[in-house]
């Protein structure tokens, strides 16, 4: 399969908001109720097609604890996109997204594209962050906001694909699409385990 573009994206956010679960749901179609906490980082890859362009997404799924940033500044420095995740049932985690936005503006590639995901929408009853507030914030900083549930699968494909679209758009606007030197013709067996567990979808917003 010919890959036209290769994009590195990172998942960022407070611990236990569901970064690993979102990435695993997106790439493997799986949800593990008992996901272990992440130490440092994980890597997942997914090939997708947006319009006529085939894209390989290199997803760097990171540990939530602040101090791990010291070990791998590269993960977001070279990233073209970021998924900023908060847990709708955890107010603090939303403020963490706000601080990540500031951090990315200061340190990362200036052209980084990001999307905000309010995860655990299957737990609507425990919601602490009003959806309107989150959407208003996203609008204010010019980012898209998605309501997601790694458990039900809601919004998961959409939020990752939105990041890929944003990166593509940015490239075509700047008129200098960078063809990845690593992108070359090859066959990749991936996603063979798609749809392992079908969870009934919760009453999502």
């Amino acid at each position, binding site marked *: 399969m010919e890959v036209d573009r290769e994009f590195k994206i990172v998942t960022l956010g407070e*611990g*236990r908001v569901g970064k690993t679960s979102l990435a695993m749901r997106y790439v493997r179609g799986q949800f593990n109720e*008992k*996901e*272990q*906490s*992440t*130490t*440092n*980082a*994980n*890597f*997942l*890859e997914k090939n997708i097609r947006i319009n006529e362009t085939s894209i390989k997404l*290199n997803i760097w799924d990171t*540990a*939530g*604890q602040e*101090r*791990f940033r*010291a*070990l*791998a500044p*590269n*993960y977001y420095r070279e990233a073209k996109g970021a998924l900023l995740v908060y847990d709708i049932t955890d107010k*603090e985690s939303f403020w963490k997204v706000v601080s990540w936005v500031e951090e990315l503006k200061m340190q990362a590639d200036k052209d980084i594209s990001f999307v905000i995901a309010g995860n655990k929408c299957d737990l609507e009853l425990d919601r602490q962050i009003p959806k309107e507030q989150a959407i208003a914030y996203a609008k204010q900083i010019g980012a898209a906001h998605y309501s997601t549930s790694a458990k039900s699968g809601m919004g998961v494909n959409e939020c990752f694909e939105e990041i890929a679209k944003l990166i593509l758009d940015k490239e075509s606007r700047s008129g200098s699409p960078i063809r990845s030197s690593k992108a070359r013709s090859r066959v*990749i067996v*991936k996603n063979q385990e798609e749809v392992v567990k079908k969870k009934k979808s919760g009453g999502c917003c």
Partner: protein
Amino acid sequence: MGAACCGSKVLKHVRVADVSRVPMGMIPPTYQTDQDIENNWNKELNLYQDSNNPISTFKEQNFTKFRSLIYNGTPKSLRFEIWQQALNINSDEISVENLLDSNLSTSLSDIEKDITRTFPANPLFSTELGQKTLKEVLLAFANHRPNIGYCQGMNYIAATFLITCNGDRNSAFYIMNCVLSKFGAERLFEKGFPLVKELCSKFHNSLRSAKPNIEAHILKHNFDDALWLTKWFITMFTYSFSYETVVRFWDGVFTKGIRFMINISLAIVEMIESEILKRDLPLLSEYFSGIGQRYLNIDLIMKNALKYDVQIDNNDQAV
């Protein structure tokens, strides 16, 4: 038996078969079982059976043999007692109870986020009592060493100690505190992770000279340390390997020092050379994520770990 501890530089390179092809459940004849290891120990301890504490007497009277036997493996039934002797645990120094004030710690919310996500499949940590005990061990340490606090990764180390001492909170705290504070492992968690960076850098230097083809492959495919090596070091192997494997690694680390984790990592990587060389980044990442479920010839890893001439600081040896 017994010889594995000495002569770290003279052991000849051992050609290793592709261990991952050994079918699951088939144990090669060279593999020591827990029973074999227990028999080794009982044979020695029988010499001191009149003593009140045969393990302690064995340590005092034949220190060299004591060390080499630990390196060769500790049996489940005696492991915790042996480790306590090996690490000179002094349980009277600190009151764990006084360290459980959750108001003291800024780490509490970080700890709480991880306690239900630490070995969730393990019977001990799928109970509320087990999770509460784990939380208390971590909180006590964070309060005892506020400059270090709680760092993700400690949860797996504390849990491994708890499994070994059958869930006894205070015993787990004392030994973890000893390994982190006195043994030097807490530098793994210090701000900026200085020890992790040092271990990674020494690992790569050694791999470059011992196995330049593996090092080149890792570099070529951008297989970042963040995805595997830093996890091995920060969690002292507990995140990536099975409990039975980890305790053997720790037997080695407790006798050789914290930097011996480099030697063990080199021996693992060399053993799975062919598996590494045929994989690119996504497949490497997948393979290393699942390495705990693969059969690894642990006796051979521990034997090979001795042949690498990594600079080990003698000060951080325990016994």
